[in-house]
């Protein structure tokens, strides 16, 4: 194991303690629930509450995106594990300002069960909570509604949160989140597994020199496993799945996110980004804005994912809307 941890049963609590201390100008833990990270500004008067969440181990997803004009709270689960219904409910109590809340999270069965129970509990209090699950991972299913959420989470969170910050009502925020999700496609490649803090071992086997294209961020299998290719070939293959899926076409404008799954350095990401840009140039798809870095990770997993979001003027405005969170600041 090459990790810096203490007792594996304390990993999440210790991380949260450190996080809320390090970023105390942005966030704090909800007093009644140590698994709810709340923006210092929440509840924001007259604003729809934006609640994101999921398992731990994907940092800076989710808690890094709680802050001004971004998410109002993040609900934190165990490693790779959705949070509990009570925490989902507590997040609503922490941030609801009377205009209802939206739950945004990656589309995984466990998350759906827990967040749904949280929404039911909120409904008993008369608080309306709507849900948009994110389904950007192109290869995870033929059927879009069954797809997983991966790094595209970031764009959907950003768009919905900006809409809420602009004063939109819950239906409008839901519509913005859905629109963002509908226009976002991702796919990744894994070059290793993450190390599970409890076992100290790889969560799944992936030999050095091998890669798996299309693998999910929890190690779910993808298109194919094979010998590691060079960066350009890997990008070419990923783009060959992403581009036709929406499809993205000549004349479109896109936001690009080249994401590290954790251990893959910025050097490699920028080499990959370069190839993405070349391909988009070739296809006459215009790059409106770009992000390159670790936005949605699996701890120390090696790998990279590419996300494209097709933009119209509304989505551009939402992405550009200023915000200030511990792991994303937009001026």
């Amino acid at each position, binding site marked *: 194991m090459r990790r810096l941890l203490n007792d594996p049963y304390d990993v999440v609590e210790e991380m949260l303690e450190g996080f809320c201390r390090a970023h105390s100008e942005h966030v704090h833990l909800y007093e009644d629930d140590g698994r709810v990270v709340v923006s210092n500004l929440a509840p924001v008067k007259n604003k729809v509450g934006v609640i994101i969440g999921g398992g731990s181990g994907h940092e800076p997803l989710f808690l890094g995106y709680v802050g001004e004009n971004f998410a109002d709270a993040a609900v934190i689960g165990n*490693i790779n594990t959705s949070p*509990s219904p009570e925490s989902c409910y507590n997040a609503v109590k922490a941030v609801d300002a009377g205009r209802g809340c939206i739950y945004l999270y990656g589309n995984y069965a466990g998350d759906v069960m827990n967040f749904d*129970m949280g929404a039911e509990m909120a409904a008993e209090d008369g608080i309306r909570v709507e849900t948009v699950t994110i389904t950007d991972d192109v290869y995870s299913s033929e059927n879009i509604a069954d797809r997983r959420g991966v790094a595209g989470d970031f764009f959907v969170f950003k768009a919905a949160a900006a809409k809420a910050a602009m004063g939109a009502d819950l239906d409008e925020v839901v519509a913005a989140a859905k629109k963002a999700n509908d226009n976002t496609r991702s796919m990744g490649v894994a070059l290793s597994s993450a190390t599970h803090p*409890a*076992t100290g071992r790889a*969560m799944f086997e992936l030999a050095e020199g091998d890669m798996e294209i299309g693998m999910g961020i929890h*190690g779910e*299998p993808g298109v194919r496993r094979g010998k590691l290719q060079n960066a350009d070939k890997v990008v070419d293959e990923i783009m060959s799945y992403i581009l036709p899926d929406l499809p993205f076409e000549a004349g479109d404008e896109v936001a690009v996110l080249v994401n590290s799954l954790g251990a893959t350095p910025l050097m490699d990401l920028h080499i990959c980004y370069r190839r993405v840009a070349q391909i988009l140039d070739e296809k006459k798809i215009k790059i409106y804005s770009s992000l390159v870095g670790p936005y949605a990770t699996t701890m120390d997993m090696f790998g990279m994912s590419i996300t494209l979001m097709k933009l119209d003027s509304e989505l551009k405005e939402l992405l550009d809307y200023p915000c200030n969170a511990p792991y994303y600041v937009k001026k």
Partner: protein
Amino acid sequence: MYTDCILGKDYFYQVIEKIAGLIEEKRDYLTELDAAIGDADHGFNLSIGFREVLKKMPEWKDKDIKGFFRSVGMTLLGKVGGAAGPLYGSFFMKFGEPGSGKDEVTFQELFEMFKQGVEAVEQRGKAILGEKTMVDALRPALNAFEKAMKENLEAKQVMEAFVDAARQGAEATIDMIAKKGRAMRLGERSRGHLDPGAASSTMILEVFLDCFPF
């Protein structure tokens, strides 16, 4: 029939304590099963949940059977997360219902408890037989319990039939293709692996037999 087969709170306490110990012991085994077709957290998450249950159990000494299992279920629901949290949480919360206001239950009521527990899992997860989930252990076990009672087998034999059916059901998940849960996206690649939830629920039912006082 079964009239002198009465199960008191002590039985249920002992069962939960033993389950907690067993989960701890089998933690890494269950996690390995989940690594093969899931996300390598099943054993670890259950252990987080049952550690908390063990810690809090002394506070629940004075509760009736319903209250006790409600606390067990709520604790699992709050601590386990993922799919297993709501599923086992619901199982135990419903499991206690027939014990409302009671410190002991009849064997007939024990069946009722399992029935409500299993139905709660089915309702929460919407899985049916053959989808490679814990339902493939729980549902056959429940059916076997009912059948064995109808056949007037002795209580102990009923429990054995119950656990046997769970074991066979779990075993049968090896050849299945997952249709629910995280493994469903593996398609054909999910075949050849024991479902971790079916394995853990079989372990849990086994403890009810092991501690069975008759």
